[in-house]
């Protein structure tokens, strides 16, 4: 079983988490609005390097960032996605 080092709950099995997509900056300089929308919505990072991703620990509703290698599946870094947690109002749970 793959283990994810959750900053909130400690090491937990991957089955307790959901993948929520790569974290990508929005292109604010785009001139063609609909093409920029299409890229933002459909064209996600899909390279073979280390990608920063948003994940959720489902039982505790805790959002976290993982820096994960898309070839070896190795997790390089895990840290709280603070903005996401407070925006959701689900930051506190003890």
């Amino acid at each position: 079983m793959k283990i994810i080092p959750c900053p909130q709950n400690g090491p937990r099995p991957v089955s307790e988490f959901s993948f929520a997509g790569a974290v990508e900056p929005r292109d604010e300089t785009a001139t063609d609005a609909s093409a920029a929308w299409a890229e933002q919505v459909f064209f996600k990072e899909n390279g073979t390097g280390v990608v920063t991703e948003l994940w959720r620990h489902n039982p505790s509703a805790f959002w976290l960032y993982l820096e994960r290698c898309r070839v070896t599946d190795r997790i390089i870094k895990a840290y709280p996605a603070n903005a996401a947690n407070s925006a959701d109002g689900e930051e506190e749970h003890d």
Partner: protein
Amino acid sequence: MPFGLLKYGLSRRYPAEPHFSAGKSLKSHYDVVIIGAGAHGAGMAYYLAKYHGITNVALLDKAYLGGGNSARNTAVIRSNYLTETGVNFYKESARLYQDLSNEFGYNIMHEQRGQLTLAHNDTTLRNFRWRAEIGKHLGTNIEMVDRQTIKELAPELNLSENVRFPILAGLWHADGATARHDAIVWGYTKGACERGVELHQLTEVEDFTIENGRVTEVKTNRGKISCGCVVQAVAGHSSLIAAKAGIRLPIQTYPLQAMVTQNYKPLLTPHVSSPQLKVFTHQTSRGEFVIGSGADDYPLYSSRATLERKEMLASAIIELFPFLQHAQILRQWGGIADVTPDYSPIMGLSPLKNYYLNAGWGTYGFKAAPVSAKTMAECVATGKPPALIEDFALERFYRFKQVNEVGATAEVH
């Protein structure tokens, strides 16, 4: 009988027939370079030679012929999709499959045993009614069936109401079929090579030279080739190859896993799948139960198989077929699937003038290989995508005109 067979096998009067010419050196120029020798690449080479007289074609693979997803799939062939575009396209593929054994001159082991999909909730029932209506309208064999008919179609299925998700009704698709996956690739390649196409294995495409919006050169680990045009058909590596041509694709790449049990006597005729339990199975003619599901839960470029997925498949399949609780798993494996947002492929033209896309086959590209190869060959030969694949253009994502097959594909192949 065994001795007769041995004598036949060793007799000089019946020498083994080599299907493909082995290891030539690369020529300096090809009219068409096909990247990826899976079912789609090999099929395109075959139809280019057969219908369009284009034979100066290089079929390149970085590994061996048909060793990618074409060697790893669960070989489900069906056309019970949701959209008119989807049904028409996959229906034509299912029809082409019926004739391939004759066309190749050897047995692709095509077996039309039907597909039974199960509904355990109202949402799936609505989805089934839609698919049954559109399927009938477009001339496929499809109907909704009740529990009694399900019992007759699959007597070993657990129809108890005392389970997590009792079975309410089914979608019966008599056109559903299966075939020997390797045989498709071999048959196409044999036919292509007989007509002059060159297969080059262990030939990896590493980069392109692009001038004025055209690919002029393909760089491989065995040297450079100048080319008339290029088609990519690399399944799980679609984004990576396209990126080398400067093209971004709306694809996420996921592992896709399957497994088979030990052999049983014949117990199950049709293919059975359950979108809610996220599992499907059929019994092969050897007697094994092939068990599979949708793609993994997060993206990864790896064909590794995991214990989590085995547990999930096992718990779901035991709910449908309780006797399988005693089964031993004989083999397990994974492939790499290029999944699009709408679960439809990306086919046809690209932003480069002489570069064509055959990608985004996710979990469903085996059944589509014949029609995909045939229509793509026409597209490459004429420079214009035929009507059957117009809606699958990359450009659809910029116009928000997706061909949404998520509800007919995500959990079943």
